[in-house]
């Protein structure tokens, strides 16, 4: 039971606000000896598992830390390339921590505009008259809820599939947006929201909704 994250997208598909509330990303740390049995590749400036799933390490996981020290993209903190570091026998045995990569800001912006288009295609492919775009998207690990306002702003909440009363939360988030972003004289429309009062009220709304979701079961 949890609310994972919130996205707010403006009418042009640009991400104007994003908040990660709760994440328990799976992380696995394991000691390896030479030769390194997991096949890695460099993808999008990250070192990703390409082959050799074992002990909870899945294809698509990235290298998060080596010997307890977090890595920076495809390099170690001292600037050495991870792929070269793992290819030389004198560095072994070593501990490598794998996990799902955290989304970068760029990826979040890209995913937001991607959803904006999917929303439009969803309504175009409708077999029934006057359909809206995607409102709820269900997968086995999360449920995405989307509320589009009259002015085209989209509020997206990603939550646990069993979390109830997300529609109430979406309405509440809209209220918070009108009260603390739109009524703020320093906020310009369709631009990223940077306002402490908005942040704290949004977090309050999410926490309240989580309690509501639990007490109603």
């Amino acid at each position: 039971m949890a609310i994972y994250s919130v996205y707010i997208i403006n009418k042009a598909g640009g991400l104007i606000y994003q908040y990660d509330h709760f994440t328990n990303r799976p992380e696995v740390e394991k000691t390896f000896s030479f030769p390194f049995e997991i096949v890695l590749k460099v993808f999008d400036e990250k070192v990703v598992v390409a082959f050799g799933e074992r002990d909870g390490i899945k294809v698509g996981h990235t290298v998060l830390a080596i010997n307890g020290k977090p890595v920076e993209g495809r390099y170690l903190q001292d600037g050495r390339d991870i792929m070269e570091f793992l290819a030389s026998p004198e560095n072994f045995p070593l501990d490598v921590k794998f996990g799902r990569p955290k989304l970068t800001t760029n990826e979040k912006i890209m995913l937001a505009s991607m959803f904006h288009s999917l929303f439009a295609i969803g309504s175009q492919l409708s077999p029934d008259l006057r359909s809206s775009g995607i409102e709820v998207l269900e997968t086995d690990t999360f449920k995405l809820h989307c509320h589009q306002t009259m002015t085209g702003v989209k509020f997206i909440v990603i939550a646990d599939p069993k979390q109830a009363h997300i529609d109430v939360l979406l309405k509440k988030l809209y209220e918070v947006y009108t009260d603390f972003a739109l009524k703020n004289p320093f906020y310009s429309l369709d631009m990223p929201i940077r306002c402490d009062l908005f942040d704290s009220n949004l977090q309050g709304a999410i926490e309240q909704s989580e309690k509501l979701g639990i007490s109603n079961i």
Partner: protein
Amino acid sequence: MTIFDFYIFDRNGTCLCYAEWNRKKQSGISKDEEYKLMYGMLFSIKSFVNRISPTDIKDGFLNFKTSKYMLHFYETPSGLKLIMNTDLGAGSMRDVLHQIYSTIYVEYVVKNPLCELDKPILSELFKSKLDEFIRSLPVFASKVS
């Protein structure tokens, strides 16, 4: 409750089968374009879901809902995709889609030596069995409108 339409795509994006029952609105583009748009949307949703998911996913995308319809998605390990559009009253159709795959597609297409697996399905037997199966579903409930 009703069923609007049904698609089968192979793993390369070819539309193998399309059938519609109570569809009220056409998309306004040619059927070929519509299949491409549908496949493209599902392909993007799959990649979107994979990336935005907070934890590791197993089955991935299951269905989505708009204000008027619900799209159900089922993918076999071989990459065959079955898609069904129903109205909002229908619950999870995953079992139904799996049943269509295992008792109709496998029986009347895979086991039919005259059917090529990467070409649109021409078999009349398959089409009639599919139609019969869909019409017999409780969610189909012929709505007079």
